[in-house]
């Protein structure tokens, strides 16, 4: 386990300055990222370092960690006579985990700087690495992959990168950790950097590799020492040959997924429920002067915009399973008493339409003319997350957007070898496998290719018996439809 010594009483330079707090109007943005790597890569220490240096760890938590460090005989007294602490313990989880010396699953951590609030999904690297990486990466704007500088690119690195490419994570940062243990050697770093870029080219990661918008935008490789803090929060003087940014600088400046405009992005709005008070208006709204008469026949469709934007007056299509698209006009966008002219992803709003269509929860509202017919044939890549294997002929549930339908697994057409990125023959999928399958749905769904629509192209496979989530599904085009072969994993 990686360790590091920090005197508890030493004042920590903080990233949160009180000046920014008093200017409460200053809007910070939210950035979600995940870490992937194993304990041996020093991931816990890196996460501990980020939390510690950004003052997310408060005194009582630090005390608890210091006590535990002492109880376990960690380090002994530091140079200043205070108790040395093992920062990896800051991310130490449940007693059940400590007793077994393992990490059970994804833990979420929070810290903030002047620019951003961060949500960190800390994904353990060993046993169920695919399950955890898929989970963490599905909501992440960026993923930090750790490599031990002494070991270089391992098979696990290739596996992580291929999962991230499959999930189309916008930014991948490779942290070459423990650079102190190779004496800050430039040649070691350059060799690993070249290997990473070779893997990236094979996978099609990175702007230069593809030159189109719908892929991992960039791949940054940074030499760090989580133990000593080199290039984590501040640029290090011990890597003079590296003139790029420190890890936190990167995280503070990368655009979040919803800040990246792609030309392919168009308005999508899965309807969650219909707001139709029929006289049962909120008493507090009425007390605040809501016009009861005007709202007697109020009817709006509530949901969260999954991509794109919508304006009052826009033409939209309503997609209901079993019916052709019905086109109408947006007459209002409401949010808790405010009338908006325009709304963006990922805002939660309520939309009013010109026509009194029979729209229900589970339907989708989309920019008119941008969606094709719903389909009951689903071709997909499945990340299998359950110990219960997938067999051809199985009956499952598919949750897509706000609708859940029954489905039959018609066939499994192959399994991805994550180390070679090649599809191998397979007729079943086991835990941590990623494979291709064809499903027949009991009702058609407005399926879209995941490559272009990260939300409406994603679905869950659910076990109808116990309700557990079996797989993360990524919609692929039907065979014969145009599909860019470069994305065909």
């Amino acid at each position, binding site marked *: 386990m990686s360790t590091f010594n920090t005197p508890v009483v030493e004042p920590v330079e903080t990233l949160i300055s009180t000046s920014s707090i008093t200017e409460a109007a200053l809007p910070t943005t939210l950035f979600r990222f995940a870490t992937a790597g194993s304990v041996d890569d020093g991931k816990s220490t890196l996460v501990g370092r980020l939390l510690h240096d950004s003052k997310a760890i408060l005194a009582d938590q630090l005390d608890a960690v210091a006590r535990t460090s002492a109880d376990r005989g960690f380090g002994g007294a530091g140079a200043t006579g205070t108790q040395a602490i093992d920062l990896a313990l800051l991310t130490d989880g449940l*007693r059940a985990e400590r007793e077994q010396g393992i990490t059970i699953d994804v833990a979420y951590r*929070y810290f903030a700087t002047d620019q951003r609030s961060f949500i960190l999904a800390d994904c353990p690297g060993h046993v169920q690495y695919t399950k955890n990486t898929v989970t963490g990466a599905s909501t992440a704007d960026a993923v930090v992959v750790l490599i031990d500088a002494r070991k270089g690119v391992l098979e696990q690195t290739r596996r992580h990168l291929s999962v991230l490419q499959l999930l189309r994570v916008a930014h991948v940062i490779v942290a070459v950790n423990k650079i102190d243990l190779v004496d800050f050697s430039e040649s070691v770093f350059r060799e690993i950097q070249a290997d990473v870029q070779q893997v990236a080219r094979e996978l099609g990661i990175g702007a230069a590799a593809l030159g189109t918008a719908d892929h991992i935008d960039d791949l*940054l*490789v940074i030499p760090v020492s989580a133990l000593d803090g080199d290039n984590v929060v501040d640029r290090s003087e011990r890597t003079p040959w590296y003139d790029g940014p420190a890890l936190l600088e990167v995280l503070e400046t990368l655009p979040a997924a919803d800040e990246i405009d792609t030309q392919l992005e168009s308005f999508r709005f899965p309807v969650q429920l219909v707001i*139709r008070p029929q006289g049962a*208006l909120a008493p507090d709204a009425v007390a605040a002067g809501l016009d009861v008469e005007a709202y007697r026949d109020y009817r709006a469709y509530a949901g969260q915009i999954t991509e794109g934007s919508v304006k009052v007056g826009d033409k939209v299509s309503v997609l209901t399973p079993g019916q052709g698209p019905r086109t109408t006009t947006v007459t209002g966008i409401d949010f808790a008493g405010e009338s908006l002219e325009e709304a963006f992803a990922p805002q*939660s709003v309520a939309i009013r339409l010109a026509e009194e269509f029979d729209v229900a929860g589970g339907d989708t509202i989309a920019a008119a003319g941008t969606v094709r017919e719903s389909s009951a044939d689903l071709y997909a890549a499945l990340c299998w997350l359950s110990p219960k294997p997938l067999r051809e002929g199985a009956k499952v549930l598919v949750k897509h957007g706000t609708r859940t339908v029954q489905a039959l697994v018609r066939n499994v057409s192959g399994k991805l070898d994550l180390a070679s990125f090649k599809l191998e023959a397979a007729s079943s999928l086991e835990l941590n496998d990623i494979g291709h399958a064809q499903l027949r749905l009991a009702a058609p769904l407005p399926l879209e290719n995941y490559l272009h629509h990260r939300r409406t192209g994603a679905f869950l496979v659910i076990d109808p018996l116990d309700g557990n989530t079996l797989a993360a599904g990524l919609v692929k085009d039907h065979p014969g439809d145009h599909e860019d072969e470069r994305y065909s994993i």
Partner: protein
Amino acid sequence: MSTLNDTLVSTGSTTEPVIEPVEISTRLSSLDALESEAIHIIREVVAEFEKPALLFSGGKDSVVMLHLATKAFWPGKVPFPVLHVDTGHNFPEVIDFRDRTVERLGLKLVVGSVQEFIDRGELAERADGTRNPLQTVPLLDAIQKNKFDAVFGGGRRDEDKARAKERILSLRDEFGQWDPRNQRPELWNLYNGRHTVGQHVRAFPISNWTELDIWRYIERENIELPGLYYAHDREVFARDGMWRAVGEVSQPLPHEEVITKTVRYRTVGDMSCTGAVESAAATVSDVVIEVAASTITERGATRADDRISEAAMEDRKKDGYF
């Protein structure tokens, strides 16, 4: 809103990253993004479950939850009842606040009473007098009797390391137990709320909020809280390194000196185990500044029950606690 920000772009696969100005659009602030996420989850639970309820104690997190629910269904009424597990040791002003809030929003209030369970001999008072851990039994009883299949809670992942691994939708068995080793992976914004008869789901829409987010939101939305959260003079005595209020259920021992101090509460729970902190923060803006500068967690500062052991919260959650 578009702003010109310095952002990082890779100029190619063989060079190091450089910082170049790139046009990016900043659409939502972090508070707006958290609010939108919470409303999406609240609506999802209402759409997918037969009979949800919201845990409402009058504490700041549950007040924020209720505020989010009013926004999610505007101009309609909040379409579920609120559930309060009353330890019998609550601050009277918090109970008063609870009743006024329920009245103002036209909600149904379901109360599970720890005192009634003790009176019936179905729960025993603990030696330390703390009633927080006793809430689990009345909570599960109320869930069962009312056939609630989803219960909203104001739990946040930044509160505790057991909570850090909690799902936004968390499945509980017939005994209300949480099994951290058997949690469903949470993918994209697709929440799987499937459950079988007897099971129920705890929903935590503000999982991703921090204490500071909560306070900034309370300030921004001008949300009313019980007065306890702001600095006031109170008779207190020192116990376990905290300031305890003098009250019916919280009496000083002979050696514990009672003094009047200017204090406020960072959490509002059972009077017998919730401590006050010395503070001059009399307004919400003062509190935002105080919380931002704080060097100690809210639970560590004010909850005796979380100091019982390193895994106190983990143990309570496994038994069906909030």
